[in-house]
């Protein structure tokens, strides 16, 4: 598997998820068109640009623009332009949604990964408009490393927050237990699905220090995933199980993590796509696939093939 194939596959999965997310959450995102202005508390990019809420039409149009921009980015068409445009629109729309007094934490990693992808040659494979450049393999390798670093550091930061705000008592005491009880109770009282199991288990005092310790090992130990491909896979599996436990104990859904998209930099996605494509071909499908295998020379559609070596690309005038 080439690095560009892996990176292209990550683009497909991450941008594909972001597009699906925008479509599913569009009614919610559009609902911010008519909120009380007194609740507006801008953060991030929105705080740099706005003092007050946007008009209704602008909110709707920006959500629509983000959805539309995701399509060319997904298929890798003119990525150098469409990738950054999509990244900006996605960041804007989700930052705006978080600018109403409460910052949520389920979408941060998706946005960070889209931004890193937008700065990378993520359309050098698995794209209808493959954009090759000199030293493409080296650039793709570093982009994948940057995606992996962004992923593990979000967990490290979350681990640091627990030690900073809760001290060692977060690991050895009742902080996690109380948090689980409070969170489930708040959800119940505010009419949202909660975890009766988590609430009931909050009464089992001895259970929580080991769970807190495991949680800290997953978060603060995340950098081990950068050491080798095998450790990356193992940590991804453990982190995924961690999110399953959060879902079970607190009814908190981290869809980006639970669907495995967050861990795309650690998974051999390019290899899986190449195998799937090979199986498709063996099955006798002769039609030209919409996305081309980076290592299979194609009749030149866009005047380039990612199968060319870097030197071939470099020597191109």
């Amino acid at each position, binding site marked *: 598997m080439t690095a560009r194939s892996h990176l292209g596959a990550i683009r497909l999965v991450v941008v594909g998820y972001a597009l699906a997310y925008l479509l599913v959450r569009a009614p919610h995102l559009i609902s911010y068109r008519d909120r009380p202005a007194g609740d507006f508390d801008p953060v991030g990019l929105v705080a740099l640009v706005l003092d007050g809420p946007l008009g209704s039409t602008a909110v709707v149009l920006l959500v629509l623009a983000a959805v539309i921009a995701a399509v060319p980015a997904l298929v890798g068409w003119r990525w150098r332009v469409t990738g950054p445009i999509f990244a900006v629109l996605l960041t804007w729309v989700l930052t705006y949604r978080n600018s109403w*007094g409460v910052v949520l934490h389920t979408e941060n990693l998706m946005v960070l990964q889209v931004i890193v992808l937008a700065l990378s040659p993520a359309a050098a494979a698995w794209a209808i408009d493959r954009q090759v450049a000199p*030293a493409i393999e080296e650039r793709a390798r570093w982009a994948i490393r940057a995606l992996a670093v962004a992923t593990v550091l*979000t967990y490290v930061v979350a681990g640091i927050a627990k030690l900073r705000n809760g001290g060692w008592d977060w690991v050895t005491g009742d902080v996690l237990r109380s948090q689980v009880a409070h969170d489930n109770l708040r959800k119940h009282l505010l009419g949202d699905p909660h975890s009766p199991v988590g609430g009931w288990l909050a009464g089992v005092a001895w259970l929580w220090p080991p769970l807190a310790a495991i949680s800290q090992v997953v978060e603060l130990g995340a950098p081990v995933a950068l050491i080798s491909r095998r450790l990356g896979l193992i940590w991804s599996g453990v982190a995924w199980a961690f999110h399953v436990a959060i879902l079970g104990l607190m009814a908190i859904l981290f869809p980006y993590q639970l669907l495995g998209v967050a861990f795309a930099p650690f998974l051999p996605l390019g290899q899986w796509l190449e195998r799937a494509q090979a199986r498709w071909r063996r099955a006798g499908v002769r039609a030209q696939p919409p996305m081309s295998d980076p290592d299979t020379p194609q009749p030149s559609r866009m005047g380039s093939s990612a199968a060319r070596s870097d030197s071939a690309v470099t020597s191109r005038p």
Partner: protein
Amino acid sequence: MTGVGASQTRQGAAASERGAVRRARAAGMLVLLVVAAAVLWPVIRRPPQDSFPLSTYPMFSFPLEPVAEMDLVVGVDADGDDVRLSPESIAGTDEVIQAGGAVARAVAGQGDDPGALCRRVAARLVGDDPVAVEVRTDLYDAIGWFRGAREPLERTVHARCEVPR
């Protein structure tokens, strides 16, 4: 092209490729360092500041008292019993954290006052079971609640309003 000329061309291409790889490596390292610094920035800066998409991820990190202070908006039916309202009814959102935040801000005197929040929620409930809406702060034993201690330890009603018929 002579053999010597072809060889020189190949060497030139190889040197050019090596240069491109070196530049790509430097640029890649720079991007990686910028990404790492950006993700770590919210915890490095003083005071640490949660934002989006760069966050301190403070969720579930703070110690809490066993007694939970819950700012709530609840419906009250004709028998005087509580009717749990959805985040959609409370704050026009399907995000419970945002609904809770809107109620907490109103109770704290930031944003809408409790009376205005109460009337807005009541207006959303026209035709439903509740005959009234209350904005309250209830104190509960958070762990005990799941073991059957469902009565609030203390209740403060900030606003009450009728649901329009």
